């Protein structure tokens, strides 16, 4: 499956068996006392990739990032960057830079000296530093604020200073820990696109940690979804959404309806019988064989809702409308089936609301086609 | 190389202050203990040698045989010392209670003051703490003596016709301790009261609790960590206090810090004063350990 976005369509080194990974985690485990933050994890990231680590707090994504930055040492396993083993290399000797969640701007320095800090550590000559700083400030559109202190800036401006500071040394890899977490929603959306443009323009590898699935979907070439120190799936945003590897991923990214049942006919044009006895037609049951317990997962927008059972429906269930959330661009219906289960169906409001629209306690049918859902085995 | 350097650096950060405190704080205690087992001599230093290694192993064993707990026995035989310890504990306890009674309303008033005013009030409480302890105690001499300002004032008001004798009594020591240690009591109390959510009181009153009951049932229990911290900060140093009983208490007030001082400077009996110090330390170990545990617990709860 191709990733979204026109400029990136051809960028898919992970699909190319001859491509050399740029960052490689090999069986990395990190324990803090009794707590295992990262559990025997292996992962590859390619050059120029925009890679997102997505998961709930405590899933180990930040620990993974901090190990790459050199702030934590793996308990076991190895990390390679551009072919070099990173073991024992302290943060100040690594060709990666980090943008911290708190931005970590030095409060006693101006914007300019903050950005110049890393260059000074490298002993770069003064005129060159000045030139580079000016270029970085121009890049993030902060030239008028060069002489200000961090506390005299707005949240969005501070985020840009942090970005400029971490980019100033031209690192091979930029690590971003919840880069947009402290911004409000509107600013966050704008900044997402700016980050993407910047990454494209500079040709850098970005590894971003986030708990916000929309953010990951928008920006990343590939997403790794993590839970309890393990990676559950690494794939493009479209794959993660349309072909989740397991129920956790399906549930974590977007909302989904899952029907537990057993396979009565395997292979293509398969059939699954669910708990209540209803039988579903499924275009492809994947590797599941007859008798297996599986979960049929269908996204709410792939369900149709109507008063009558559509004549052409391959799968249909009926129930009572229990809840309606009108969101403007779309409406989400919670339909309560007769056995008590609740199914979520959403419709795009492409026309203005009609007078005879479905309403609370109406009887309704939800239907979906055989290829609308995905069969999950775990 | 830089890594090696930073490793050495981190060792130094621990080692330098650690060594300093070991040499100048911990080791001296052992010397005090050692000398407390010795006997007075007319010499410089004025005590007989005890288990040192200067004389080799045989000398060490010989000295070990000469060890004497005589000084400790002496402390219990002479009623002076027992009385001094007891009287120190009583005076410290009473003044701690008095300081709490004086300090609580101040801390409470500060915590309920308008937020803009609080930093100023806080500074006003801390400021005397920065000025010399000795001077603050000295200031009370002029106030408390028979022809002093307090007696002049009271006579002027016609309340007394004979001057009150306060200076050189235990009352003067109480006043001195309460006055000198008040900031130590007010600050932890204020810290505890200030972070208390006032809506708790409103909730209690909303549920039918009159203000005074609300204070006893809600405010006071919640301020207990501050009460404990404040009382410990006053009680522990007050037990060993020297300047206040010496300047305000006169010769009749018995406190162990003063006894130790006199034993050392006037009787030049170093072994006995060491024994006095060791016993005082043993008495204080209990409240100090309790205080440190309470502090550690408070820190944990905060984080």
């Amino acid at each position: 499956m191709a990733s979204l976005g026109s400029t990136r369509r051809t960028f898919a080194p992970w699909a190319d068996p001859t491509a050399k990974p740029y960052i490689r985690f090999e069986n990395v485990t990190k324990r803090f006392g009794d707590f295992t933050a990262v559990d025997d994890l292996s992962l590859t990231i390619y050059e120029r990739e925009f890679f997102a680590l997505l998961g709930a707090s405590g899933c180990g994504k930040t620990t993974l990032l901090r190990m790459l930055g050199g702030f934590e040492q793996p308990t076991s396993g190895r990390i390679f960057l551009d072919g070099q083993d990173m073991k024992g290399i302290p943060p100040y000797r690594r060709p990666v830079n980090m943008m911290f969640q708190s931005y970590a701007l030095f409060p006693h320095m101006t914007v300019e000296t903050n950005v110049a800090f890393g260059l000074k550590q490298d002993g770069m000559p003064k005129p060159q530093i000045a030139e580079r700083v000016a270029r970085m400030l121009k890049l993030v559109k902060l030239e008028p604020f060069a002489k200000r202190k961090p506390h005299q800036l707005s949240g969005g401006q501070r985020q840009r200073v942090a970005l400029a500071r971490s980019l100033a040394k031209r690192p091979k890899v930029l690590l971003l820990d919840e880069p947009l977490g402290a911004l409000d929603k509107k600013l966050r959306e704008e900044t997402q696109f700016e980050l993407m443009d910047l990454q494209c323009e500079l040709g850098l590898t970005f590894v971003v940690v986030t708990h916000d699935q929309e953010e990951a979907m928008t920006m990343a070439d590939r997403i790794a979804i993590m839970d309890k120190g393990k990676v559950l799936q690494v794939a493009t945003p479209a794959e993660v959404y349309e072909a989740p590897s397991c129920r956790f991923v399906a549930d974590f990214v977007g909302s989904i309806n899952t029907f537990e049942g057993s396979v009565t006919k395997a292979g293509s044009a398969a059939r699954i019988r669910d708990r209540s006895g209803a039988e579903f037609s499924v275009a492809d049951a994947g590797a599941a064989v007859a008798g297996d317990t599986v979960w049929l997962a269908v996204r709410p927008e792939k369900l149709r809702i109507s008063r009558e059972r559509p004549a052409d429906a391959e799968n249909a269930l009926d129930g009572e409308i229990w809840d309606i959330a009108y969101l403007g661009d779309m409406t989400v219906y919670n339909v309560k089936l007769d056995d008590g289960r609740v199914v979520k169906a959403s419709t795009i409001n492409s026309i203005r609301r009609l007078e005879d629209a479905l309403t609370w306690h109406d009887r309704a049918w939800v239907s979906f086609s055989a290829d609308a859902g995905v069969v999950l085995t775990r | 190389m830089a890594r090696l350097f930073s490793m050495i650096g981190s060792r130094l950060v621990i080692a330098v202050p650690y060594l300093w405190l070991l040499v100048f704080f911990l080791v001296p205690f052992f010397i005090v203990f050692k000398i407390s087992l010795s006997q007075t001599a007319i010499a410089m230093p004025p005590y007989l040698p005890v288990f040192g290694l200067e004389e080799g192993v045989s000398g060490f064993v010989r000295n070990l045989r000469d060890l004497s707990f005589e000084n400790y026995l002496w402390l219990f035989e002479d009623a002076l010392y027992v009385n001094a310890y007891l009287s120190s504990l009583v005076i410290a306890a009473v003044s701690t209670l008095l300081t709490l009674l004086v300090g609580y309303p101040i801390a409470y008033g500060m915590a309920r003051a308008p937020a803009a005013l609080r930093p100023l009030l806080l500074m006003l409480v801390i400021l005397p703490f920065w000025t010399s302890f000795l001077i603050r105690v000295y200031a009370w001499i002029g106030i408390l003596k028979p022809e002093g300002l307090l007696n002049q004032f009271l006579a002027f008001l016609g309340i007394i016709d004979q001057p009150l004798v306060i200076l050189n009594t235990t009352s003067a020591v109480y006043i001195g301790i309460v006055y000198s240690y008040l900031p130590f009591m007010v600050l932890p109390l204020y810290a505890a009261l200030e972070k208390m959510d006032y809506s708790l009181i409103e909730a209690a009153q909303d549920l039918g609790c009159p203000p005074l009951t609300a204070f006893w049932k809600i405010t006071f229990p919640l301020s207990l960590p501050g009460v404990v911290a404040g009382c410990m900060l006053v009680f522990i140093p007050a037990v060993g206090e020297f300047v206040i009983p010496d300047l305000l208490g006169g010769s009749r007030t018995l406190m162990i810090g003063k006894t130790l001082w006199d034993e050392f400077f006037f009787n030049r009996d170093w072994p006995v004063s060491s024994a006095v110090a060791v016993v005082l330390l043993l008495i204080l170990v209990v409240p100090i350990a309790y205080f440190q545990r309470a502090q550690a617990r408070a820190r944990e709860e905060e984080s």
Partner: protein
Amino acid sequence: MAGTWGRFNVVALALGFAFLYLPIVLLVIYSFNESRLVTVWAGFSTKWYVAMLNNRGLMDAAWVTARVAFLSATVATVLGTMAAVALTRYTRFRGRLLFSGIVFAPLVMPEVITGLSLLLLFVAINFDRGFATVTIAHITFSMCFVAVVVQSRLITFDRSLEEAALDLGATPVKAFFQVTLPVILPAVIAGWMLAFTLSLDDLVIASFTSGPGATTLPMKIYSQVRLGVTPEINAVSTVLIAIVTVGVVVASLANKRQDVLRQREAAE
């Protein structure tokens, strides 16, 4: 707010502050008394300040104290800051429990014990008592106060600032001096001031550890007070109070400015 800050609170505060400040105010007033008797007002005069300045012994003691206080506060600030860093940064090293114990114990240790034990140490190692021994003694107890002040600042210090410095290529030593130290500087300065005033103030420990030629101002004041109250001592006290008050007020104003900046930072 007026309802919650009732009359009781105002009265409590007024009485409390009167109790705290009246003795000091009276002491200052009577330093300007014409009469030799501290308790009888006989008109305004500055003659006790002149007498103070002409008192050779007093001035020598003041000079000794100033040097001891400056030197001991400076060394104590370095050592105390190191101890605070050790306690907040290195949560696991052998003997940490003992270390934190001996950092905090001097805060509540009766001065007579600290003084006596240090004296016995100096005698045991045959170290001549004088300027050096007083200074060492003052460093020892005041570094613990510095450690507490700096530690409370370090606890709230954002570690990611240091990590950012490392990330940008600064070695840990450089990161400390270029980022951590400038940020915690107000606490370090407050620690120095505390150490300075503690040294300025100390009578008991100095009396034990001092020797000939190293009489400190509190020792001098104490010996004069024991002979009787004189307006000259009031004058000395007033000067000391004035120095400390100005110092504390200036420092807290500077600190307040810092706080305002930090709050503004936090608010955004």
